[in-house]
């Protein structure tokens, strides 16, 4: 199938994958090949077939509304990424570049 660079760029943006123009071109070629592989299944007549999400025909189990988790902030925030040498947490908050509404 024919993919355009614009398609690849759009998908890369949706998926937040930064790509140079060279990378986009190379991705376009490879993805086109993969889509050729996928194309085979599109022609199949699946009228009246129910989609299959799960192997077993089971339904969702429910959890009692009881607190089971304790405060593990210190442990979890020890995993916080660093930026310019310091961990990106402050006053218990995770830090990201400012989001302007």
């Amino acid at each position: 199938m024919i993919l355009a660079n614009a398609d690849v760029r759009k998908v890369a943006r949706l998926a937040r994958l930064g790509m140079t123009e060279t990378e986009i071109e190379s991705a376009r070629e490879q993805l086109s090949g993969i889509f050729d592989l996928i194309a085979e299944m599109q022609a199949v007549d699946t009228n009246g077939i129910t989609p299959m999400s799960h192997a077993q025909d089971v339904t969702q189990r429910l959890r009692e509304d009881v607190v089971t988790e304790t405060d593990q902030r210190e442990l979890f925030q020890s995993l916080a990424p660093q930026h310019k040498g310091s961990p990106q947490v402050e006053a218990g908050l995770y830090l990201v570049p400012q989001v302007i509404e």
Partner: protein
Amino acid sequence: MPQKTNVRAPEWEIVIGLEVHTQLSTNTKIFSGASTTYGSEPNTQADAVSIALPGVLPVLNKGAVERAIKFGLAVGAHIAPRSVFARKNYFYPDLPKGYQISQFDLPVVGQGALTIMVEPLSGNAKPYEKVVRITRAHLEEDAGKSVHGESRGVTGVDLNRAGTPLLEIVSEPDMRSAAEAVSYAKTLHSLVRWIGICDGNMQEGSFRCDVNVSVRRPGGPLGTRREIKNLNSFKFMQQAIDYEVQWQIGTIEDGGKIHQATVLFDADKGTTHAMRSKEEAQDYRYFPDPDLLPLEISEEWKERVRATLPELPEAKRNRYVKDLGLSPYDAGILTASREAANFFEAALHEIPDSAKLCANWLTGEVSAQLNRESLEMQQSPVTPQQLAGMLKRIADGTISNAGAKEVFRIMWAEGGDADSIIEAKGLKQVSDSGAIEALVDEIIAANADKVAEYRGGKDKLFGFFVGLAMKASKGKANPAQLNDVLKKKLAG
């Protein structure tokens, strides 16, 4: 662009639909056992699932589902025997998984309806009833919160709220004015508190309204709508809608077009403005969440939940009107909250034959006093039993209405039961016919000229005599009896 104020634009029809996000009052999050208590230190209630660590998985909270069922039953909606959770994919710092678990094709609650009493916001129009259709209500998880960090250029993320269960209630675009939208929102707010699924605390974000607004020529096709997001007060909702409507009408009349947009309300300026538009429209790529299985709700479960529902506001209102003879307006006020209805019914329990008297006092004096002190009914220092005690003494003639107001004032400020206060302050009204007749005789004797004028046709002077009699009796004359005696004796 000129802003028109107080414009009545009869050549335009306003079309409004609401999407209300209600935080369900569960102990834990919708997909994990972390606590949902409001106001905790940042990220102390953000468990592994809430912060989307690698490898964690969602498990559905039964309490969230029960509350959804309760809501569906309360609005007479279809409860889906089988519903599916779907992922809504987008990137944002307060959305740890990079997707929100919501429901798309198959929501838990289907079509229902809410009957509202529309309170016009201005003018002298009477309140009127309207049925607003509910399209659907679905379960989903709340996102975390972004807060501005200490340093500039940096935003802080608190994931305590991430995963709190939400029921998103979507209405049909049935509303035609800000008044209708606000009434719908208020009724919905009251209902979710009534059935105990949401605490309705708008300051804390428990009840958030998104309003879709468009305008069209009557009979014409639907206009493009803009969505005003995250309104958390009824006052702001009204202001926002009014401004947005003016803006849309003004734009079109000036030759412009309305583009679909997400809009924010600036409370300080009283204006709406579109959020910065992104280069591409959001593509959420909904698909069924493979970590969750279809939710099945059996008939038995539905009926078990139905049995836990209290008498709903509408049914109560109807009963108050039909069985107790209250006006629909008063019935409406008394059923605005479960607390108000409970208060009324508790008082009524003591004086079952005086429903109207009780209603009048609650919707009148009691409400006024509560409003003055910004209190809710359940915070009233006067209990239903105390109130009932006083109402009994009005009903049996022991005190007049004026006397009762005094009793009530003392009861509110200092406490105590009606009988003690009446005794202590000597508030019993005089209903002794002999004493009243003597009083009236004296007044007639002392004011012969006025009596002659009255008998000559000056009916207005009646009030003059009432005033004199009240003064002479130090306000204690039974007003009804006094009226009768005065009328009789003045007639000659």
